[in-house]
């Protein structure tokens, strides 16, 4: 049986930018191949090149580009249109924007059926991907569906014309961990049913369970390939090692006992918006020098707790103390003197900097001498006069950290600080945060949806669901022996390399 896809020495360039630089691979029928790499590695471009959608201005060269036994190098637009949807279906990251928001999902799926003149029923297709109440859902619009259902609808539209190959580009990245597990389950089902899969992801763990083979891409080249297990056991390329390290639930490096004394305390916190309760009965204590992890999926109320602790949200009930004084229910005037002791690092540092300010001024706002703090977070003097926009994601987060540590705070609230970063940068930023705790004795409240990150960094962890804390305890205990059913579900859903190990 010949390969479904055969690529040899593929180059894709956009003007001066070489996105893909001479890669070769093949995908056999019924196989699941994953391409893993960070942003800018060329993995998405590769996937899109296979359906002739490399993008405007792209120049594609290859020694061989064979799809289903046909040479695609000379394909005219008409040939490509038959390939798209007919030979290969494409699933993109976030269905909220990848499905036309102005059309019902039924219309979107029906479009594929009409275009390829295949018989099929929208409702059947939705039922096939386990969308409940398919008749009703078909009439709904993407924004009316949950993230998981949307993604299922998007998958249904991609497989509507029964293409032998399904290309999924970061199909679960925008989803919560438990939803992600279910979508991966659905992709697994499709593979069982004989469909060939090409998965694109930045996260090795996500694809580990499904993929027969993993290709690791970096800077437009394939640096290593093999099964997930093989990569885990013996990665040779340094980048693969980083990917493996990031994907494993690494045990904590060293445990430093937190010193005594409470820096912040939340008691009986409750927040209502109208009739809607977003958090209730939350108790949370942060000791001096302690790292507390707060885990939960979107809508669990973890951000509300962080905002309340930061004084942006007034509790409906309950009280918050910080630095031996009341923090909630007092006028901002009385909080202001203690403000410098409490800092925030957010997921998106770009929005947390005034766009007109240079790094010098941003960090200078917190301290008269920005340079030592920048050097401490691994930056050099040459970033001083740059604007936030001119920095990379990792550099921005370092600037945010420098600004946060400059006033010598006793507590830093970190709201998903590494979620937007590439794997290799993530590890560095986490190391930096751990170092700051160790050296300054600063306590951290670390909010994340990523269990691996929490396990790596935190001393104690709180698990939130639907606005309430369902489990709390030392990290080792919670991860080794979770008591609450939801914690167990979270841990089970979290993709790991260990599962894939033979």
């Amino acid at each position, binding site marked *: 049986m010949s390969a479904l896809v055969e690529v040899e020495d593929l180059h894709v360039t956009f003007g001066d930018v070489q996105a893909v630089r001479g890669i070769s691979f093949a995908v056999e029928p019924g196989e699941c191949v994953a391409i893993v790499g960070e942003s800018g590695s060329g993995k998405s471009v590769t996937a*899109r090149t296979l*359906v002739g*959608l490399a993008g405007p201005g792209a120049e594609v060269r290859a020694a061989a580009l064979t799809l289903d036994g046909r040479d695609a190098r000379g394909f005219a*637009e008409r040939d490509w*249109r*038959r*390939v*798209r*949807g*007919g030979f*290969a*279906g*494409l699933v*993109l*990251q*976030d269905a909220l*924007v*990848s*499905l*036309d*928001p*102005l*059309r*019902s999902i039924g219309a979107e799926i029906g*479009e*594929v059926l009409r*275009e*390829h003149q295949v018989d099929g029923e929208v409702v059947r297709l939705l039922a096939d991907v386990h969308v409940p109440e398919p008749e009703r859902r078909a009439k709904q*619009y993407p*924004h*009316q569906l949950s993230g998981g259902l949307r993604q299922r609808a*998007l998958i249904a*539209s*991609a497989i509507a*014309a029964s293409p032998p190959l399904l290309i999924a580009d970061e199909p679960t990245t925008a989803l919560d961990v438990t939803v992600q597990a279910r979508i991966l389950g659905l992709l697994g089902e499709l593979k069982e049913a004989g469909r060939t899969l090409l998965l694109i992801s930045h996260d090795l763990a996500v694809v580990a369970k499904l993929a027969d083979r993993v290709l690791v891409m970096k800077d437009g080249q394939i640096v290593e390939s093999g099964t997930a297990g093989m990569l885990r056991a013996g990665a040779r390329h340094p980048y693969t090692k980083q990917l493996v390290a990031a994907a494993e639930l690494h045990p904590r490096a060293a445990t430093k006992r937190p010193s005594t004394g409470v820096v912040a305390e939340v008691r009986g916190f409750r927040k209502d918006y109208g009739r809607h309760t977003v958090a209730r009965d939350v108790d949370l204590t942060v000791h001096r020098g302690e790292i507390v992890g707060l885990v939960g999926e979107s809508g669990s109320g973890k951000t509300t707790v962080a905002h309340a602790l930061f004084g942006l949200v007034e509790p409906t009930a309950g009280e918050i103390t910080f630095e031996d004084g009341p923090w909630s229910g007092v006028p901002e005037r009385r909080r202001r003197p203690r403000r410098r002791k409490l800092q925030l690092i957010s997921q998106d540092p770009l929005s947390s900097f005034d766009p007109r300010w240079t790094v010098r001024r941003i960090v200078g706002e917190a301290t008269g001498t920005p340079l030592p703090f920048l050097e401490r977070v691994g930056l050099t003097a040459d970033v001083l006069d740059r604007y936030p926009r001119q920095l990379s994601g990792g550099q921005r987060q370092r600037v945010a950290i420098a600004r946060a540590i400059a006033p010598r705070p006793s507590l830093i609230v970190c709201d998903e600080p590494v979620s937007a970063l590439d794997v290799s940068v993530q590890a560095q930023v986490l190391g930096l945060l751990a170092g700051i705790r160790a050296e300054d004795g600063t306590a951290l409240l670390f909010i994340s949806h990523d269990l691996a990150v929490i396990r790596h960094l935190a001393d104690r962890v709180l698990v939130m669901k639907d606005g309430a804390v369902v489990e709390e305890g030392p990290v080792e205990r919670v991860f080794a022996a979770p008591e609450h059913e939801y914690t167990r579900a979270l841990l089970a859903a979290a993709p790991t390399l260990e599962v894939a190990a033979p």
Partner: protein
Amino acid sequence: MRAVLRRAGSGLIVLWAAATAAYLALLAAPGDTVDSIIGDGADTPLIRSQIIQEWGLDRPAVVQYLDYLWRAAHGDLGRSYLLQRPVRDVIGEQLTPTLELAVAAAALGVLIALVLAVTTRRAWARRTSSTTELVLVSTPPFLIGIVLLSVFSFRFGWFPVSGDRGVAALILPAVTLALPIAGVLTQVLRDGLDRALSEPFAVTARSRGLAENAVLIRHALRHALLPAVTLTGWLFGVLLGGAVIVEQVFGRPGLGQVTLAAVNSKDMPVVLAVVVLSAFVYVLINTLADVVYLAIDPRLRRS
């Protein structure tokens, strides 16, 4: 449905505020109210007492204001002193030619914009088209009218120089009014198309095997229409303001001529009526536009 009602409600508030503002403008005019109502008209004690009686100027200000609102709400817009006739009749008989002009121009402008935005996707066509749009948008409409007039009526004699008889007399005025509208709308639509085509859903649509034109018409165009719909109110203002000028250039009868004559002779009841009427139509059209917006964009509908 509730959203529509809410919008209609806020439209009423805007209308009330607009009518009040117009009324206040009249009161704020320097000098006696009777003077500003008379304007350059005949000023005799008889007319003065007539005005005071008709406008009820001897009553308290609040009562006068409420009376004005009450009458305006019932379509009674007062009497023209220049023409000695009810304003409603004066406006009523001049409404048709202006309406014809406005509708023809709006339809033509929208049509040109749609065709241009969709067909000029290639780089060179796009550059030519957007340069032309810039020139059209930046040229005073009366200049466009004058140029069209001198070329097509004077030089070639294809169209009548003035008047409102027949379709031929409508063509040049409608084109004059439509061109600047088309210029703006094309820019907005093209921008919207560009934005929509660079969204992930356009990639998904292409990945289904749709032809580029199908992606453009079936998916991107609806998105591009949204910002254009919000311009409806602006469009109405341009049409009405433009009609005043175009009617002047082409010597067409209509609301614009009535308004200009009224302004020149300070026939305040007529001016006030035209202004309040235009605010009314503006609010009406904007409310309609909101409904259209809701019809296009399901995200704003509350189920």
